[in-house]
């Protein structure tokens, strides 16, 4: 099995989906000849032609709206937004149309679309290229929001997203596009959406993260093990609808929880997880639920961005604190 980077796994899944299903269409800015600014769509246009791998005009609202129209006609469009910072013009289409086309027509029209976008800070990119506002999407009923954290999961979850009969926003953590490698078999096997992945078992504390933050979270778990703290690490993977049971089961076992995300703290998705536990897992809690997150400020430009991102140290400190609590 070949070792692939996460972005190569995305590419592989796209190629696989397009080969398997003539209805799959890829569209976005620079996805054609150029193969995408991160090369996620490299080679697809040569293989599937410019009508199935469409270089769109520079218009994000359009891309999302095209997806809705194509999907209503039974295509399976996979739109690419170049960076999450440019996804905001799509929110109108996502909230007012994509997420509710099935509901408002009571199943007459459906919207099997995927909107992919690289997201997150930490790649020394210019302004507006470091967004991680996934919670804005995860609040929207009718959408699915999926975030892979490894090449294998990128492949399997993207295939699942494309095959899913409903709209999926697929957020690809830029910071680990090439930073992690993994064996990926091109077997066309999708991974389940709606299921969180327990990446590491442990009984002292539950660490929950998604996307690029798994890197720091797993590193923290390693280092905590050296200190005698056995951390369970959960990759939430699908944020909407999310897998409550895996979280609750883990916290029932460990009694302690740290949620890690790079998005701003206030009303980030970590709040939802903490709220879930405060509501349904309170009796198992042996310590407050800690949130290790980005700060409530604008993500700074590269010179300071590393200070913005949750570090291994911050995750460890929070884990130690909840483990040592009470």
């Amino acid at each position, binding site marked *: 099995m070949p070792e692939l980077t996460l972005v190569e796994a995305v590419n592989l899944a796209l190629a696989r989906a397009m080969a398997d299903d003539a209805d799959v269409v890829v569209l976005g800015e620079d996805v054609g000849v150029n193969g995408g600014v991160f090369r996620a769509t490299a080679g697809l246009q040569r293989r599937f032609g410019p009508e199935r791998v469409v270089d769109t005009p520079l218009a994000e609202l359009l891309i999302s709206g095209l997806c809705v129209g194509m999907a209503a006609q039974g295509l399976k469009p996979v739109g690419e937004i170049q960076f999450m910072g440019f996804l905001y013009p799509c929110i109108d289409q996502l909230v007012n149309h994509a997420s509710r086309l099935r509901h408002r027509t*009571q199943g007459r029209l459906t919207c099997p679309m995927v909107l992919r976008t690289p997201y997150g800070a930490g790649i020394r990119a210019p302004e507006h290229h470091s967004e991680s506002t996934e919670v804005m999407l995860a609040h929207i009923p009718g959408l699915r929001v999926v975030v892979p954290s490894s090449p294998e999961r990128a492949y399997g979850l993207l295939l699942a997203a494309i095959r899913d009969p*409903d709209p999926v926003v697929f957020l690809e953590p830029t910071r680990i596009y090439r930073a992690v490698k993994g064996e990926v078999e091109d077997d066309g096997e999708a991974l389940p959406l709606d299921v969180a992945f327990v990446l590491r078992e442990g009984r002292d504390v539950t660490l929950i993260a998604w996307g690029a933050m798994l890197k720091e979270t797993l590193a923290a778990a390693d280092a905590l093990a050296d200190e005698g703290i056995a951390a369970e690490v959960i990759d939430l993977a699908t944020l909407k609808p999310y897998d409550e049971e895996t979280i609750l089961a883990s916290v029932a076992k460990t009694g302690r929880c740290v949620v890690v995300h790079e998005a701003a703290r206030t009303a980030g998705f970590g709040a939802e997880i903490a709220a879930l536990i405060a509501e349904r897992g309170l009796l198992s809690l042996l310590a407050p639920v800690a949130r290790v997150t980005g700060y409530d400020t604008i993500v700074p430009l590269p010179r300071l961005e590393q200070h913005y991102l949750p570090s291994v140290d911050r995750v460890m400190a929070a884990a130690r604190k909840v483990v040592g609590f009470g």
Partner: protein
Amino acid sequence: MDDTPGSGQDFPVIARFEVRRRSYLAPDGAPLRALPSFASDLDLLLALYRGMVLTRTFDLKAVALQRTGRLGTYAVSLGQEAVSIGVASAMREADVLLPSYRDNAALLWRGVKMEEILLYWGGDERGNCSSGPPHDFPFCVPVGSQAPHAAGVAYAFRLRKEPRVAVCLFGDGATSKGDVWEAMNFAGVWKLPLVFVANNNQWAISVPLKLQTASATLAQKAIAAGFAGEQVDGNDVLAVRAAAEEAIAAARAGGGPRLIEAVTYRLGDHTTADDAARYRPPEEVQARWKEEPITRLRSYLVSRKAWGKSQEEQLAAECQERVEAAVERYLATGPRAPQTMFDHLYAELPAVYA
């Protein structure tokens, strides 16, 4: 043209554009020029006429239902029936309609049942699961946001080489939205089988056209997207139908998109939640009644001896009856169980919500 930049100097003109205005019938129904060939088909003209009258009967009834608390907010198409009917009548069943919220006439023409439209405005999602062509879009409320869908639909036709056309209707206000712009631009690039119809009824709620845009016509907005626009007299159903027919045929033949600006007038309030007297003088509205489409076509039909008082009375009675029957079916539609609000949220309700 003398104020174009550089016109005082000898800079070459590198592009020229013009916009024409199509009309066949004067407000009094008199032909202004040779009529389009379909006008020789009297049955068709009568069908257009019936469609407009049915729509008006339906609209007025819907307002009455709203006033008596039996319907939610409702948007009448009073005075604009020719636009929706003219366009819809030029479409094939396999074509896809992407209407605005004021296109009752088009929906009715395409087979949506009156009780379904009432159900929708009465606050029940089942109204959108309608008896029209299953691929048609429902009313679109966020203004202009259906235009990118239309481009996506038309793209699908192009990709699959299906001889189908998407037809997207919106108002003058909608032309100010970036959504419409982005969709038109994309349609131009890919020469999509897509006809845009701007229903220029002069008002966007209280905002008059001159505060909406400085462009002399809405038709010329297509120039920006690299294709042709045409203005038609939107109170002349023959003009609307002819322009739509041509545009749809051209689009089907691979000629790319076209924009039709249908100039008409919103004789009614914006919706039942609006009171237009607050912002426009009744005299303006009064004057516009002289141009409205139903009387116009009737005058023409009468002049052709194809219509008369008895037919009119019979049609009125028939429309009334059909509308009443639909209203009864609407009012008889039972409530839904509250938990149906989770139906069709996803193809399958995720376990976590169950």
